[in-house]
């Protein structure tokens, strides 16, 4: 039994080393010489640094999604809410103001745009904003992004 385990270990080591060699030579020694590729190492280090932020972002996104789900399933009897406009209902409860937007009831319009050579479609509630105003807002956002 001991001999079998030892033999298994030997073959496992050979397999693992082969894998490590392939990984390391692909990432750090692409020219098959001992000179380390610093650019790839820098890239890898950056990727590793980004991982905690990505995890936090993923976690917070999931939490937000859960919060959204709660909001959506909140009012069962819409009768006690006052209709503000088509599909939008509101209610005051003490110091709280509750607004419910039923997306299925709201009339939507779609505006086609071309952003950076790619066609996109923006859906907004009908009558809320004109196409020109939306285009202006989008341009402002784009410019702000470039400045940052």
């Amino acid at each position, binding site marked *: 039994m001991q001999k079998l385990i030892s033999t298994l*270990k*030997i073959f496992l*080591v*050979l397999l693992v*080393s*082969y894998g490590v060699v*392939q990984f390391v030579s692909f990432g750090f020694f692409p020219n*098959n010489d*001992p000179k380390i590729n610093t650019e790839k190492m820098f890239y890898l280090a950056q990727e590793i640094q980004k991982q905690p932020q990505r995890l936090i972002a993923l976690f917070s996104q999931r939490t937000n999604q859960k919060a959204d789900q709660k909001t959506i399933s909140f009012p069962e009897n819409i009768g006690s809410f006052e209709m503000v406009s088509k599909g939008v209902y509101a209610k005051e409860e003490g110091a709280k103001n509750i607004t419910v937007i039923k997306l299925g009831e709201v009339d939507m319009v779609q505006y086609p745009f071309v952003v950076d050579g790619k066609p996109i479609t923006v859906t907004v509630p009908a009558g809320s904003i004109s196409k020109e105003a939306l285009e202006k807002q989008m341009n402002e956002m784009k410019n702000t992004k470039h400045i940052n």
Partner: protein
Amino acid sequence: MYLGPFYFDTKEIFLILAAILIGLAMYFSWPLYWFNPRVLLLLVILMLITKGLLPAIHNEAFFILALATIFLSLYLPLFQLILFYFISFALFRLLKVI
């Protein structure tokens, strides 16, 4: 066999013989088909050095590693081969195979 203060077991003597044969093949330009004699000679030297560091009891692991390395010399470039040899050796040590 004792050579001065050093003791050589049969496997070490065979390795030295192999190194001499490879050296002769290089000198007389004998073809070794798919094998590169320079790579083989370097591997034999590395094996002799590492074998000198090992007690004779661990011959099995060493034998399998040597076979695998020589076989891989058909496919891998020299640098990857040397990496494979040393990484395997280090892992053998870590897992207490040797």
